[in-house]
């Protein structure tokens, strides 16, 4: 191979290395795929931390009962089928002839052991408890079980798509033991635990006795490369075959490169503005001369004016380099529970000015916007661009971006009484469940600790009509009816501008020629999504 001799000769000339370079890392075999992932996982324990990189790796080893396809529609996985027997009871039938990596058969007992363990992992920074608690499980036979809930729970199958099933033998295994590879054979997935080096790599190996289609790759090597330019360079240099989270600035260049394939799809992540709905006087809004004024954001016309003053196509074109789609609700309308009636929000500066005048602010006001710095794609650039757009509307807008650790703490509970601190913030939201109920419940429902509603409602938006519609939807087990009810709630929240959506991000992967990636809405980079070209 030419590469070997060149490197040996040149290395000495350059004086970079003192040992003769006899061999190079063997070029990847046709059986292996090397993947550059953008975020570090915190553990190999499938139930320790509900975090995207953790779930993405874990679910390839420890399959969940219910799968999510590339558009996050639910598909049978370890559960062959499920049905609602009545409003509060679900019955799941398990797939037969499934074996764990250690060869033992998969039965209801393993599922019940998983339900025991998943919500109770000690010191979990973000537990799966929410998906398991409040449910009573009963075994019907070796391959059938029932779930009983106190109230109608249409999302039970969705809940079961979030965490993997482990063998009952592993129910007492600790997180540290999982990291060390103990109980690595306790999953049923297409890939097996090969090697885990914290902060560096995860190696998965093929499960040759997988119940489904045989996985293509004998080995999938996930390398953690957090710096975006480095990830792109690693792809171009041939260190890895696939990378996720391609930075928007590089997408055009990679698309033009004949040696690279780019795959992208709309994501479940919306970028939006949340604003102060609950204070009479909002802390970061004043009249232009600095004197206090009543909070203008409580007037629908002002919110409409702000929304209309945002040039969404401009942001998508110039800042996101077309790696986004203008948004008019919380999820793109191909997802479950979204409205098909909502129209795109047109950019209309004159209309916005008129509304602002009608609302009693012909000369605008002064406002300070806040946002995280480096948390979402191009977040700082977006908020700065929007500030300029608001300035053209006549609102003197200042911007302050903060490190995420500081921003979320203050945006959630920075004001006295653990109330949100800011007046107008840029945030993002990914709908992990692949439908809209989660987003509506967390972002727009009235903040209510008892009922667990509106936990991330950092504007404290509250609208009884919206709440009523959402509660109705959350109690509707029939899919078609729930879809409509959620859409109706979405329309109420969006027409009232409980928050102002900006755009949906695209998820983008790049591969070397010879590899193909099937893009997914949920940001998971799975070895099974990669095929040979």
């Amino acid at each position: 191979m030419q590469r070997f001799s060149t490197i040996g000769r040149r290395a000495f000339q350059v004086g970079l290395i003192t040992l003769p370079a006899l061999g190079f890392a063997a070029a990847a075999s046709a059986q292996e795929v090397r993947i550059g992932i953008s975020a570090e996982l915190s553990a190999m324990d499938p139930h320790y931390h509900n975090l995207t990189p953790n779930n993405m790796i874990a679910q390839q080893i420890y399959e969940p009962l219910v799968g999510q396809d590339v558009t996050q529609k639910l598909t049978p996985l370890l559960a062959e089928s499920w049905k609602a027997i009545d409003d509060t009871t679900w019955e799941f039938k398990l797939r037969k002839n499934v074996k764990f990596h250690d060869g033992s058969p998969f039965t209801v007992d393993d599922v019940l052991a998983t339900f025991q363990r998943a919500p109770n992992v000690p010191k979990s920074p973000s537990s799966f408890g929410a998906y398991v608690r409040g449910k009573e499980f009963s075994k019907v036979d070796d391959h059938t079980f029932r779930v009983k809930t106190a109230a109608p729970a249409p999302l039970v199958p969705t809940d079961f798509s979030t965490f993997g099933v482990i063998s009952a033998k592993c129910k007492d295994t600790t997180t540290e033991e999982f990291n060390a590879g103990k109980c690595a054979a306790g999953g049923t997935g297409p890939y097996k635990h090969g090697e885990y080096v914290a902060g560096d790599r995860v190696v998965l190996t093929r499960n040759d006795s997988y119940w489904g289609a045989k996985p293509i790759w004998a080995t999938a090597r996930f390398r953690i490369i957090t710096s975006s330019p480095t990830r792109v360079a690693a792809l171009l240099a041939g260190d890895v075959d696939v990378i996720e989270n391609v930075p928007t600035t590089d997408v055009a260049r990679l698309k033009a490169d004949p040696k690279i394939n780019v795959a992208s799809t709309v994501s479940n992540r919306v970028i939006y503005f949340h604003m102060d709905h609950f204070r009479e006087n909002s802390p970061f809004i004043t009249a232009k001369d600095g004197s206090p004024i009543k909070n203008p954001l409580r007037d629908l016309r002002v919110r409409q004016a702000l929304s209309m003053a945002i040039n969404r196509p401009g942001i998508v074109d110039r800042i996101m380099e077309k790696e986004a789609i203008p948004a008019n609700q919380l999820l793109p309308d191909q997802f479950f529970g979204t409205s098909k009636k909502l129209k795109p929000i047109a950019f209309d500066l004159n209309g916005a000015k008129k509304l602002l005048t009608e609302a009693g602010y012909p000369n605008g006001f002064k406002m300070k916007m806040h946002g995280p710095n480096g948390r979402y794609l191009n977040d700082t650039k977006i908020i700065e661009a929007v500030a300029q757009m608001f300035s053209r509307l006549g609102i003197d807008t200042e911007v302050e971006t903060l490190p995420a650790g500081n921003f979320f703490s203050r945006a959630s509970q920075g004001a006295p009484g653990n109330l949100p601190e800011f007046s107008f913030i840029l945030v993002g939201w990914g709908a992990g469940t692949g439908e809209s109920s989660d987003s509506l419940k967390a972002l727009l429902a009235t903040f209510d600790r008892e009922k667990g509603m509106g936990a991330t409602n950092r504007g404290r938006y509250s609208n009884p009509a919206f709440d009523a519609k959402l509660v109705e939807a959350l109690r509707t087990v029939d899919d078609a009816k729930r879809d409509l009810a959620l859409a109706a709630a979405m329309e109420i929240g969006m027409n009232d501008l409980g928050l102002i959506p900006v755009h949906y991000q695209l998820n983008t992967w790049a591969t070397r020629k010879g590899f193909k990636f099937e893009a997914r809405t949920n940001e998971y980079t799975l070895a099974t999504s990669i095929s040979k070209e």
Partner: protein
Amino acid sequence: MLAFILRRLAQSSFVIGAMLVIVFFGVNVVGDPIWMLVSPDMNQEQIAETARQLGLDRPIWEQFAIFLKNAAQGDLGRSFVHGESAITLILSRMPATLELAFVALAMAIVIGLPLGLYAGLKPDSRISRAIMALSILGFSLPTFWVGLMLILTFAVALGWLPATGRGETVSILGVETSLLTIDGWQHVALPALNLALLKISLVIRLARAGAREAALMDYVKFARAKGLSQRRIIGVHILKNIMIPIVTVLGLEFGSLVAFSVVTETIFAWPGMGRLLLEAITRLDRPVIVAYVMVVVVLFVTINLLVDLVYSALDPRVRLTEATT
């Protein structure tokens, strides 16, 4: 001597204590870690429950008291994110960072010393001027930019070296090192060069200044008059005399190589403790940040002490009892 060491240790423990307080409360001023940990779709009760489990619901002074109590028993706490002992996490990433720092230090000496000597002995030649110009570049170019350029040149355009990561490792006495495999050296070359660049420039400057001064000294003139070969004059008499300041400075710089290789490790996806720190800071993983700072302070204090001891051994004029600063 013993009194000196003891006083040093007392001073150091004061430094460590002060750093502890600053870092512990400093992280808390930045934000409440709970918001960086919980999944966004958790409800209020689940968030509160997680905070309870991690002890984050208690007032900060109470958290500090608990921390002190555990620290007195040698337990610096568990990472909020990883759930493992913070000190274990750091120590497990340390070999990778030490490896990088050693190679960078070696590069600084092997590349910097000859170039600096040359520039010092022939200050007016064109080559010397070129060397000095390069050393200015080495000082002034930002590390992250040089790192990316190295990757683009040697990995992407030329394809000689891998762009990222650590090579194959071999276990020796329980420590994983990649310096015994060829693959390992290929991986370490670029990040080490990136990290070494600043130190190379530093050594060039020190060696040049020292050599220029030494070349005019009487003992050099005398050696020359005695008819010693040029090689012996430079290699023995000049080199020996200029080494003292260089060794001192490099000793201290080694500490900063280990502690602050954050940028290089991030760019080259090097799985060392610098990246662990960066990750911990972005996620407000307080136990890891605190433990990291403790490790670094101990490291610096130890190196300082060693340098002082070595220095007094090298130069009999230095008396340790006076070197209290």
